[in-house]
């Protein structure tokens, strides 16, 4: 039998990178061929943005600020939350497409090929993070178009904000991939990933935590969206960040590690 001998370590790593990028190309091709899912998920945050600014904006800002209605101030308040919500919304699509993908016979084919084992999952994760960032940029552009401006954020703060968004997208994506892998079908995957869209509604995205009823505050406070939103707010608008910076990073890293271990163990366990 003429099988090439196992390649040396550096060669193995470069082959693994090549397999991952092949799988990434496959996922991007899917996203490009069938953009409706991505666009549908993008609608939710954009609609919420327009709804909260133009319909509820005056009342909400009067309620929060204590003064008169101030719509532009409220735009500034909710945009950081909506950017993170956009990520939550995009990764619901990830859970659905991972679940769909696992029912395809081609996955069984990949498992019988001499390729890097994790490349299927890594391709999904990188593809989804890129999609999240694209969506965030699009929602951000809408926000700027209706009047959102950052208050003297430095280049470093912009970079940190971008880094936080990438980190957050990576964390939620790994969790969503795990949800997609354990769900028996695409509908179940969509339902299982729902909390990732709903959590921002229970955070400081739309109203400050101190304006919430006392019993509810712990729920809003001890979840990943609130510290991430507060950090993003601080970076873009110059509000106080406090502990939220490192809390957000810890949440992101924790969820990434958890999602990674969960997803890879699920994917590597015996298929039925």
């Amino acid at each position: 039998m003429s099988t090439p001998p196992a390649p040396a370590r550096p060669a193995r790593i470069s082959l693994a990178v090549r397999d991952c990028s092949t799988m990434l190309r496959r996922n991007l091709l899917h996203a490009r061929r069938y953009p409706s899912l991505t666009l549908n998920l993008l609608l939710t945050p954009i609609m919420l943005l327009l709804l909260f600014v133009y319909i509820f904006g005056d009342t909400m800002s009067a309620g929060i600020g204590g003064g008169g209605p101030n719509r532009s101030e409220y735009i500034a308040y909710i945009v950081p939350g909506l950017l993170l919500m956009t990520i939550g919304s995009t990764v619901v699509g990830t859970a659905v497409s991972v679940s769909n993908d696992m029912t395809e016979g081609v996955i069984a084919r990949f498992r019988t090929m001499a390729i890097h084992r994790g490349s299927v999952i890594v391709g999904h994760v990188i593809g989804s993070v890129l999609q999240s960032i694209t969506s965030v940029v699009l929602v951000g552009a809408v926000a700027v178009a209706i009047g959102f401006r950052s208050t003297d954020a430095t280049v470093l703060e912009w970079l940190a904000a971008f880094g936080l968004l990438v980190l957050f997208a990576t964390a939620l994506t790994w969790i969503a991939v795990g949800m997609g892998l354990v769900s028996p079908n695409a509908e179940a995957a969509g339902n299982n990933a729902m909390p990732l869209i709903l959590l921002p509604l229970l955070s400081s995205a739309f109203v400050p935590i101190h304006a919430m009823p006392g019993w509810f505050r712990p729920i809003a406070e001890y979840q990943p969206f609130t510290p991430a939103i507060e950090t993003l707010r601080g970076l873009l608008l110059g509000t106080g960040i406090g502990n939220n910076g490192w809390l957000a990073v810890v949440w992101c890293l924790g969820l990434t590690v958890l999602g990674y271990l969960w997803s890879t163990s699920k994917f590597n366990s015996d298929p039925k």
Partner: protein
Amino acid sequence: MTDLAIAANGLRKSYGDKTVLDGVDLAVPEGTIFSLLGPNGAGKTTAVKILSTLVPPDPASGRIRVGGHDLATDAQAVRAAIGVTGQFSAVDGLITGEENMLLMADLHHLSKREGRQVTAELLERFDLTEAAKKPASTYSGGMKRRLDIAMTLVGGPRIIFLDEPTTGLDPRSRHNMWQIIRELVTGGVTVFLTTQYLEEADELADRIAVLHDGEIAAQGTAEELKRIVPGGHVRLRFTDPAAYRSAASALRDASRDEESLALRIPSDGSQRELRSILDRLDSEGIEADELTVHTPDLDDVFFALTGGAGIPDQPKEAAR
């Protein structure tokens, strides 16, 4: 070449209490077509899944070598030597046939130029050039199966597993597939084929193993297996229960199927034997509503090997 492409000793697999494979020994020489024959649920697909590294065998199994590599310790080397076309099409339906092929070329680490060349050649060979730019999900069953095999061939595997490659295909596609499989071995490739049809194994395989309830019931060439089978049977069907009963008493060697009012008489289907059956019926003044001659098929192999018990009567493929 006398080397074995596949050598498995005591292959075992159970899911919970259910034993799917109960100590199966397989020896497939290089460059031959080997067919694992059996009905649904016999364990054929499980055997393919294990040999192609998809699922691990039970620890109680003996040594398993595929392509000269140990399945347990060197699965990745096994994967590099094999190609698998499963029972359910393993193509990516969302992308085009050509993109599916290029995806395989990338995963086999071919250069861009090589990848394009292999893709064009194989699409041409499997008559898919015209459909190359269409999404694979729009392909017919036969086209999907052809694309599936074309994808399997991209890396130039030495051993190819085909799990029921013709199930669900129309007769023309089935004959095309047979031709494709025959051509595969001319290049020295080993083919491990599973099928439910004796006819198919007979057409293609150098050696056949009959799998029944997770064990090999018989193994040999098609000729050797047919010797086990007592030459087929004649089936008589009645609509009148009285005619059925008198025919049953006239033909004592027939096995009865009370529910469908049918009799089954062992026969090689020769003119002489048919005449003798008809003469016996005529002399009793009985007229059957339907008479069919069955050549040996999988059912008969099973009746012979398992003492006539075990499998339900299925509609016959080879009725003439």
